[in-house]
């Protein structure tokens, strides 16, 4: 029990929990992105990818449960930390200026997190748990042809990119990985990876919206 308290009940412990769950979620994103990139190769490839994936039913369930756990932990600790941190400065400054450390991503972690959560819930309800028995490519094509839905995805993915721009660097620092030898690499790598992940995902609704040949 001692160890649980050392991690869940202290600031540095919770930092590790946020970083580790964030890393897990980021890895999932990469796998999800690689799989979904079959979208760029047309309906047949994409549908066959989906069929292969779903044939791994038992494994998939297991991964989903793990993923759900990571999400719940990341959200629960993220929200408590946010609330805690607001209370740590009850009287705000009349003038607050950055000393030069913060980034747009680091400023908005909580809010970009909410945007991601909204996108996630929408995505789960309308795609993952959709009561639709046709080909997945048809469903996605129909969705992304709708400017409201495509627009919502683009907005949500922008939030994801912003979140990752801080998170993908921050998690290494939290895990204690910081050295002048590779700090530059980690910082730039995080930005590049955030841009790449959000950008490639975003290309999907963009193509769906503007290209008639999408998932044909």
């Amino acid at each position, binding site marked *: 029990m001692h160890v649980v308290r050392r991690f869940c009940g*202290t600031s540095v412990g919770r930092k590790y929990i946020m970083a580790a769950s964030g890393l897990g979620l980021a890895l999932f994103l990469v796998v999800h992105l690689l799989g979904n990139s079959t979208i760029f190769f047309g309906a047949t490839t994409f549908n066959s990818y989906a069929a292969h994936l779903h044939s791994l039913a038992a494994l998939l369930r297991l991964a989903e449960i793990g993923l759900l756990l990571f999400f719940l932990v990341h959200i629960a600790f993220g929200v408590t930390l946010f609330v805690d941190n607001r209370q740590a400065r009850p009287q705000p400054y009349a*003038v607050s200026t950055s000393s030069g450390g913060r980034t747009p991503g680091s400023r908005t972690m909580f809010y970009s997190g909410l945007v991601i959560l909204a996108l996630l819930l929408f995505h789960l309800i309308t795609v993952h748990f959709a009561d639709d028995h046709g080909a997945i490519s048809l469903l996605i094509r129909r969705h992304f042809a709708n400017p409201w839905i495509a627009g919502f995805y683009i907005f949500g993915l922008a939030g994801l990119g912003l979140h990752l721009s*801080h998170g993908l660097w921050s998690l290494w620092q*939290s895990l*204690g990985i*910081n050295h002048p030898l590779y700090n530059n690499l980690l910082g730039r790598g995080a930005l590049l990876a955030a841009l790449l992940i959000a950008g490639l995902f975003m290309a999907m609704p963009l193509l769906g919206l503007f290209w008639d040949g999408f998932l044909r």
Partner: protein
Amino acid sequence: MSAEKINLTLKVWRQKNSEAAGALATYTLRDISTDMSFLEMLDVLNEQLLLTGEEPVAFDHDCREGICGMCGAVVNGRPHGPERETTLCQLHMRHFKSGDTLVIEPFRARAFRVVRDLVVDRTAFDAIIQAGGYVSVNVGGAPDANALPISQKNAEQAMDAAACIGCGACVAACPNAAAMLFVSGKVSQLALLPQGHPERRERALNMVKAMDGQGFGNCTNERECEAACPKAISIRHIARLNREYLKAALSGD
């Protein structure tokens, strides 16, 4: 080079005591020499206030040389003002222009109660140090300096961490009012030196526990602390604190 004279508008936080509600009060200062330090400028303000029968502005200071850590206020949103690696006492008025408005507030954090005006109670830092920021095992008499097994690299880093003057600017700058940079300085310094090794596990656990207990916020890697630190202490020390804590949490008694 003769000093210029500048005119300033100050908005200074006035608060009678910790219970009273505070507010910004506006004062005008004329002919301030740009050779003055920021604290000397406040001295001039206080003399002016005494002449008009108003209470002078309370602010902390001691060495006025940038080494004791007593001074500190937030100037236009930045702890110790706009100059990097500079304490408020070492900040000179030549960095301001005539006509500038300066908003001067105390370091704000739940863990730093305002005592009066710009003076805050930083005993929370003392409580953290008391929880483990020392070596209490017997390490013998002072050995020959060359006999100590410390690499030059570690000695340098320990020295960088030890440069902390405990002013609290890191807490003031942190959007979460976290004290991680302060705590990491001491933990890091002692973790890098052989004398600190016997107690490193308890130290990490106890100092983090004390830090949380004092009501500081949680670090979210905003990096404002290292940017505001007058001694330029790097968040590399925070990463080391994190590692020290992880090892201690998994293996400490």
